[in-house]
């Protein structure tokens, strides 16, 4: 490895319903390093634990046991407030269901992370416009989510994920609800962000073809990493 890992997970486990008879061991000891600027795909069947892993990486959830450092920050010891800040500044989320705020236009949606980041109104507005141009939504900035197609919504969501210029983008099945054509458009956007801006991107997907486009494909099964291979997109 020529680069220092930006993200390092060791022996991560996650149990649900702890102490009850139906205690669930979703993650059984995950070791994973991700380098800065890497484009990684995580594949696995539903119930394999990949979404749970994604939540832990994204600081939305805490593991039951294990070590996790992100840019030299010990994420296990970090307080809730610090995790909020990390989510705001270091991580951009893209969801399968877009999760745009209803009745709020594209530009305000993109501004939202910047609002929590404490950016001034003018700066927020300028940057939101810039980002919407970047994802090809410059013409629809004032549109409400209800007025946008799935692909358009996802592009707004990607612009929103980019708002605070995070180093990492976590995309959970970003093309899962899109047809292959618009899915292609979204994937192209990720490639663009990866290549032009050097973002670290972690992509969860069902599709082997999409996974193949990344640099590294990690397979998860029953809460363990069962396979790791190089993808098709080597720099």
């Amino acid at each position: 490895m020529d680069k220092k890992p930006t993200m390092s997970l060791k022996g991560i486990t996650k149990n649900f319903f702890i102490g009850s008879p139906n205690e669930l061991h979703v993650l059984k000891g995950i070791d994973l390093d991700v380098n800065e600027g890497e484009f990684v795909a995580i594949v696995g069947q539903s119930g394999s634990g990949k979404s749970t892993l994604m939540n832990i990486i994204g600081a939305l959830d805490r593991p039951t046991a294990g070590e996790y450092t992100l840019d030299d920050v010990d994420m296990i010891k970090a307080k809730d407030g610090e995790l909020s800040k990390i989510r705001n500044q270091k991580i951009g989320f893209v969801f399968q269901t877009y999760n745009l705020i209803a009745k709020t236009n594209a530009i305000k949606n993109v501004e939202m992370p910047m609002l929590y980041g404490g950016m001034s109104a003018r700066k927020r507005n300028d940057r939101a416009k810039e980002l919407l141009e970047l994802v090809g939504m410059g013409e629809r900035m004032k549109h409400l989510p209800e007025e946008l197609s799935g692909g358009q919504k996802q592009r707004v969501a990607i612009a929103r994920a980019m708002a605070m210029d995070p180093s990492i983008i976590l995309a959970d099945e970003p093309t899962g609800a899109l047809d292959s054509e618009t899915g292609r458009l979204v994937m192209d956007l990720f490639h663009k962000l990866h290549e032009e801006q050097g973002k670290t991107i972690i992509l969860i997907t069902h599709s082997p073809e999409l996974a193949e486009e990344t640099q590294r494909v990690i397979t998860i099964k029953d809460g363990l990493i069962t396979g790791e291979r190089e993808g098709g997109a080597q720099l």
Partner: protein
Amino acid sequence: MMLYENIRLALFSLVANKMRALLTMLGIIIGIASVIAIMTVGNSVTQEMTDSMASLGANNVTVMLQQKEEEEESTKEGVSFGRGSRRNSNVQEADMITKEMINEYVEKYADSITAISASQSVGQGQIKDGNLYANVSISGSSTGVFVADDTEVVAGRFFTEREMEDASMVAIVSDTVVTNMFKGENENAIGKEITAYVGDRFYKFVIVGVYEYEQSPYMISTTSDKDKETTLYIPLKTGQNLAHNENFATFTVVTKAETDPDEFAKTTKQFFNAYYRKNRNWQISAFSMASMVDIMSTMMGSLTTAISVIAGIALLVGGIGVMNIMLVSITERTREIGTRKALGAPNSSIRVQFIVESIVICVIGGIIGIILGVTAGILLANWLGTPASPSLSSIVMSITFSMAIGVFFGYYPANKAAKMDPIEALRYE
């Protein structure tokens, strides 16, 4: 910056759910509106009553017969409202205050007394002339009555000494009577003869003077101006003759400016009760107008407070409504809350967002309530014929109070939102 964004957000969500927001606000609107309306009316009525009673003579002392209590007890102020009202039911002429008593009294306390206002009611009746009529109550009055009531004769004159002595059939009527009977200038009525019918009797008087009638503000009158009953003043002696009664159940003393009316009321009471020590049923009560004003203001004050408490309960119910709708709102917006958290919103921001929303609902409700309340208060006050005085303090208090309701009833739902688990919130369908 964040606050502005939160207010904008809250307004957005209100506009998005207009009907719901309005229904939620209704409790607050009704609560605040009733508080403000009651305060406005209460204020203006109290103000008007105090003013007019004071203008009737703050230094008047009213002396009246009062039925003795079984245990010889009376209220602190010496006025017993409940039983005092029965004084006319079976009072005998022998029990009444005599002219001799009053003369002795005036002699003894000449230094403190300006005038004695004593009157003898002849009864309520009607002046008639063909189709024309005017309702009057006929009152034989001493000159002191005009001093005590602050009544001004606007045309003609007062009774002369001679007329008083001779018990002449002369009268001073209100301008209402002039309007009803003579349809014209007050001057035209002077010297005219009128016939007043009281029960099956009738009396003829010559008008010597006209006074300007002022509606007393604490008597709510629903009769039209035309049917209004005004006092027809005749000389005291005339009244006594017509009523076949030389004694008094009540009279008023106008004290000198330097006399303390409250103190003098006590002295007066003692003086007259000396005559009534042996009387089985009756005693004398004396009180100053100033103490009446106090009693009235206290009564109005507690009435206002009591109604305000009821309105306060309406506000409480309104607040619970707000809490309820906030809980619905955060449940509906669970995914939004999860998304905001994923985008880096700290718990405190989420909490503030929903508390601000709750405050905005309450304050808008409060403002609508104030507008409605002031309007209703002014209309009511007008209807009662008192000048409306919406109190600024109650408006400021209402705004503050509705904000407090917003914080109080918004905190629990907002805190619930703030503590949501982001993953569960994001998964919420």
